[in-house]
């Protein structure tokens, strides 16, 4: 046999022996595990360049929502702060006035802070929120280089107004002129009572929405579930404010029942 052929055969034999060792012996099969992993596609996700999508119900950073006309949904009730197991939320409520209306109804959050040094992103606050003012976004990149930087104040948490809508504060007259149905006719009732579905606010006698919004008002010339025409209405039951000096006369309280 010519010498180069022998050399070639020698190396072929070496490779075959190596392959036999790797596939036939228990030691070799052990060594084959990392070798097989080498030819697989790595599991690593290229995070900063190609972030992977989060699940739909991902608990990211919070957001304070607005209605379509720019009014804030938050009514400053502090239920989120009370629900918070980490004591991360601070809410200071205040009254809406005729000149400065922030939210439909009586109260709004004058100051709203979430301390992300403490927050565990458990989502109990958004479950507690009666108006869906507080929700969680898919944003999780909010690290900061100082403790103070992790305290998010209302100006950072509040979502921007929808296009075409003004920001808060708005005047009462503008709000009334729009005749906006703030809870969309849907009230927040416990799911367990009504089979897990929401119910029409007007049909639910215990719904809080009925007390705040004009939809529940039933009076002369007005049917239940319809919006009142607020244009020429001098008295608006939606305005429940201490500064509202003109005592509102509720249409439905005229007749004693």
């Amino acid at each position, binding site marked *: *046999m010519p010498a180069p052929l022998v050399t070639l055969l020698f190396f072929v034999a070496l490779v075959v022996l190596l392959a036999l060792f790797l596939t036939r012996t228990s030691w070799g099969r052990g060594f084959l595990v990392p070798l097989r992993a080498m030819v697989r596609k790595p599991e690593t996700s290229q995070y900063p360049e190609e972030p992977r999508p989060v699940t739909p119900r991902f608990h990211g950073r919070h957001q304070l929502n607005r209605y379509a006309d720019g009014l804030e949904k938050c009514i400053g009730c502090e239920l989120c702060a009370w629900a918070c197991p980490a004591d991360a939320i601070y809410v200071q409520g205040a009254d809406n006035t005729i000149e400065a209306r922030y939210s439909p109804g009586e109260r709004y959050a004058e100051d709203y802070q979430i301390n992300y040094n403490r927050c565990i992103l458990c989502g109990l606050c958004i479950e507690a929120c009666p108006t869906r003012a507080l929700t969680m976004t898919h944003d999780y990149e909010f690290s900061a280089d100082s403790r103070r930087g992790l305290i998010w104040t209302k100006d950072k948490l509040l979502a921007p107004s929808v296009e075409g809508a003004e920001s808060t504060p708005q005047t009462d007259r503008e709000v009334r002129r729009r005749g906006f149905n703030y809870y969309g006719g849907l009230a927040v009732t416990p799911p367990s009572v009504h089979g897990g579905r929401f119910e029409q606010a007007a049909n639910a006698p215990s719904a809080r929405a009925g007390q705040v919004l004009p939809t529940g008002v039933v009076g002369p010339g007005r049917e239940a579930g319809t919006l009142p025409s607020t244009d020429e209405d001098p008295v608006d039951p939606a305005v429940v404010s201490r500064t509202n000096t003109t005592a509102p006369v509720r249409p439905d309280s005229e007749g004693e029942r």
Partner: protein
Amino acid sequence: MNENAQSLPLWVHLVRVLAVFAFFLVGTALLTWGERRILGRMQSRRGPNRVGPLGIGQFVVDAVKMLFKEDFTPGMVNRPLFTLAPLIGVVVSLLSMAVIPISGDITIAGHTFPLQVADLGVGVLWILAVGSIHVYSLFLAGWASTSPYPLIGGVRASAQMISYEIAQGLAIASVFIYAGSLRVSDIIAAQSGDGLIPGMPGWFVVPLFPAFVVFMVAMVAEAGRTPFDLAEAEGELVGGFVTEYSSMRFGLFMIAEFMGAITQSAIMVTLFFGGPSGPTFGLEGTLAGLLGFVWFFLKTGFFIFFFILLRGALPRYRYARLINLGWKVLIPVALMWAAVTAVFVMLTEQGGLGPQARIALGVGAAVILALLVLVRPDEDDDRPAPDHAVDVAPASTPAEPTASSTTIGRNG
């Protein structure tokens, strides 16, 4: 093979020193990146990929980090030894590369020489001697730290290195007995011819296979890498002898470790795989010599990859088993094969053996080897003896009265 070293001008020596130094230093730097990269792929990760293409700039960033970290010296340490220990490690790792040729003969300006710092007459012994000094680095680091974990790490390191030094030395002994010379260039020349059949490489891995296996295990222990990295043992000893080190002094230990892996691979290639020899494809002169560098690089790379594969595949050995393996398996095998080699060489010198005698000797050696593998002493000395198992058996078990009575009844 070479001109007399005295006759070579100074610049030749400079070229050799710089070439070898650059090869091993660049290799070490790239290995710090390449190992993490390959190890990452073995674990379905990508490894470092942020700095430069494929993350190749990682070693620069690591070096900068190491250099600029605070060089903290704990108050209670023995300062001179504490500083000396990492230096010994790096210097010794560099020194043992001195006798390893990384290319074939190349000719520059009329002078023909291989890229090798010094072709010492005691070449192989130099590797062993310098390797033994490396133990001092680890041991002094453990001792000078005056802290329990480093001390345990240092003690482990010295016990391990000394044990495996013997096995490795015996494996090397069969190499130079077979080659008939301690000089590294002679050992390579002895391998450059044909093997048993013309065309087959005459690498010593074939006739000295047991010595090769022993050397392969021992070199991992000598380099102090997984699965024999008990001296560091992050899980048990925090960091072993490097626990109290930080900054560049820690970095020097890391350099020494990576350099150790390269050096051991290079020694392995030199002693058992023909060093820079390989097919020349009809090239001659300097080009063939430079092709030798390619072969050397590929062979060394194979064993460096083997080091990384070991780290990816195996967990850390237990200490008692490590010492058992060294003393009860590797040293006897290496000793036996050194003796067999010596006998073989003696017989060849006396006039050679007939083919039948060769076959008989080979079969005999195979039988001895098989016995050595199959009939092994009890490996786990600290496993409880069977007597203890009897003691804990429940004493209240009835002594089978029914069985005996039935037997009696049936008989009666």
